[in-house]
């Protein structure tokens, strides 16, 4: 729908339920500008249009904006559409009942009832800002759709509400299909929730919308559900690695790391009675093997008693349920606790994975009866580095380093200083981004986006949801030569999901070739600084 200023964007919340060819479109010239040498729009064309066959197949769900994150095949008949609307309505009512929303009912209701429409949140949303302030991505747009549906269809007196409040929001199939897609245009970074003077949580609203769609209609991106939690709970890992493959890979990593360091690195498996069970994101083993190798080298170096588990899900800390489905979240978290109990460990150590921290470290408290203490690898590594148990030589890390704050670990959990303490000790050229800490910006890959790339969704992510972070990274290195690829710069991102998004963003903008910007985790920097290592662990050729 063309707006007054020529932009294609919804004019009111009601537009989401009205059939139209496309609710919003972001033209490349509307995007938030980037600094040189990334300011040439010819180098970065806009989002390629969806294919005609995709639009035909996915119907209304493909009419939200320029992309399609998951999509629902268009129902064959109006009767089928009506059934979906009914199921949605049933799910909507369940969302506001204690027995069905045992996780978040209270904050959800408060978020429905108390928005003052002040729009403080909008100024804090990286997607809204990067899109050139397209109304579709205003954080209150999605929230307001749910709020109006809640007042009309759930809250007692809804019929009365509807007569005096001119919401006029029609609950149509198009609304349901578009709202599903719209629930996947927010990274759940919860920057908006932090800035809200009242405590309204638009991130939670998005999470609960996704939950409604998954738990009631069975609608969820395949990367998160079929290939994600389902594969993790049946095969052992969302990566598809079974027990044999993961052991084989870890053996390879241990050998490779031992060779490069010049001393033995060994990962212990299934050690009954070890002090700690280390659960990392299994994606690390395949995509960033040094991250595990360095974690093992640090734990070995400090002489700690630790183990990994080869049980189903015991070697994969991901819990995509956090992104879309509380039941799946509970299943995975329960399994993690059970494995720790069976091994008799004193605590679980969560690796460099943001959503694992949030799911297992915080939300799981609402799920498990048999809780086991959990610690972040970041605090453990800080203690090890400062204890003197390992020898570090900061001159080995003498290149510009900045720190990305994973939303789940930092803003959403308050683990802010330990990783900085480490970097201040081992990286002479450490510099902060602006803003940072709990005011950080999302990598753009939050809530599962980093592993979703159907259709043109990856372009949407790189151009819009990762844009603010990319601008921040460039800002952090503004005092260096951004036109010199030979001067290596390092973005430390202690989270697998963030690393995936940052990798894709740096590739998309050609930032390695143009500016020499590389990325990796925290433990790699620690081990790279370890005195006496045969070769540096940071292998720029391999990054």
């Amino acid at each position, binding site marked *: 729908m063309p707006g007054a200023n020529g932009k294609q964007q919804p004019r009111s919340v009601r537009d989401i339920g009205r059939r139209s060819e496309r609710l919003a479109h972001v033209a490349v010239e509307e995007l938030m500008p980037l600094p040189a040498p990334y300011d040439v729009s010819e180098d970065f064309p806009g989002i390629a249009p969806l294919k005609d066959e995709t639009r035909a197949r996915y119907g209304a769900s493909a009419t939200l904006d320029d992309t399609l994150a998951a999509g629902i095949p268009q129902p064959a008949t109006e009767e089928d559409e009506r059934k979906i609307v009914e199921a949605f309505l049933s799910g909507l009512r369940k969302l506001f009942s204690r027995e069905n929303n045992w996780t978040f009912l209270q904050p959800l209701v408060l978020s429905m009832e108390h928005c003052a429409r002040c729009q403080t949140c909008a100024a804090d949303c990286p997607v809204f800002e990067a899109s050139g302030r397209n109304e579709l991505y205003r954080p209150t747009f999605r929230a307001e759709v749910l709020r109006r549906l809640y007042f009309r269809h759930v809250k007692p007196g809804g019929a009365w509400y509807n007569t005096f409040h001119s919401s006029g929001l029609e609950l149509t199939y198009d609304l349901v299909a578009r709202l599903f897609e719209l629930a996947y245009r927010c990274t759940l970074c919860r920057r908006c929730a932090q800035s809200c003077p009242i405590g309204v949580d638009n991130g939670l609203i998005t999470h609960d919308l996704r939950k409604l769609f998954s738990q009631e209609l069975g609608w969820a991106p395949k990367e998160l559900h079929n290939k*994600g939690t389902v594969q993790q709970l049946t095969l052992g890992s969302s990566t*598809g690695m079974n027990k044999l493959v993961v052991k084989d890979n870890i053996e390879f990593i241990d050998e490779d790391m031992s060779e490069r360091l010049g001393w033995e690195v060994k990962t212990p498996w299934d050690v009954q009675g070890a002090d700690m069970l280390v659960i990392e994101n299994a994606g690390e083993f395949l995509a960033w093997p040094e991250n595990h190798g360095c974690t093992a080298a640090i734990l070995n170096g400090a002489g700690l008693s630790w183990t990994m588990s080869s049980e189903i899900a015991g070697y994969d800390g991901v819990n995509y349920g956090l992104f879309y489905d509380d039941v799946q979240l509970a299943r995975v978290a329960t399994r993690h606790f059970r494995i720790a109990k069976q091994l008799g460990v004193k605590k679980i150590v969560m690796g460099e994975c943001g959503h694992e921290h949030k799911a297992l470290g915080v939300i799981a408290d609402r799920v498990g009866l048999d809780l086991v203490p959990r610690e972040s690898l970041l605090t453990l590594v800080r203690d090890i580095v400062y204890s003197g148990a390992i020898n570090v030589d900061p001159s080995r890390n003498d290149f510009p380093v900045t720190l990305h704050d994973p939303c789940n670990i930092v803003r959403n959990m308050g683990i802010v200083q330990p990783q900085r303490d480490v970097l201040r000790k081992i990286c002479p050229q450490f510099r902060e981004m602006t803003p940072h800490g709990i005011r950080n910006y999302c990598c753009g890959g939050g809530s599962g986006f980093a*592993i979703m790339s159907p259709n043109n969704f990856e372009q949407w992510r790189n151009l819009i949801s990762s844009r603010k972070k990319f601008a921040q990274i460039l800002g952090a290195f503004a005092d260096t030569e951004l036109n010199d690829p030979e001067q290596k710069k390092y973005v430390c991102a202690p989270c697998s999901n963030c690393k995936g998004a940052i990798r894709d963003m740096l590739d998309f903008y050609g930032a390695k070739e143009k500016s020499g910007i590389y990325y990796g985790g925290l433990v790699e920097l620690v081990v790279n600084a370890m005195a006496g290592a045969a070769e540096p662990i940071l292998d720029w050729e*391999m990054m």
Partner: protein
Amino acid sequence: MPDFEYNGKKVVVDEDGFIQDPDVWNEELANALAQVEGVDQLTDEHWNIVNYLRNYYQQFGIAPMVRKLCKETKTPLKRVYELFPSGPAKGACKVAGLPKPTGCV
């Protein structure tokens, strides 16, 4: 699921363009998929990687670690990206007929 058409034939692919049934893969299809990934001609260097990926997949049912791929085919990662511009996971695996890698990779 969409179809991928080549030389008058059709195979089913997912939304990311990965073939759905690894058994329908053959060299002709690999050449056609390579075009989509910005590779004009599959050279011996490409085939070295593609064959390694297929063998590993047949043995383990999953794509290998990138570092293992580099080490065992003696190809630096930089070279893998030169050969397959969209990278080992999205480019090389697609050409080799493996399913799209899953999880946080």
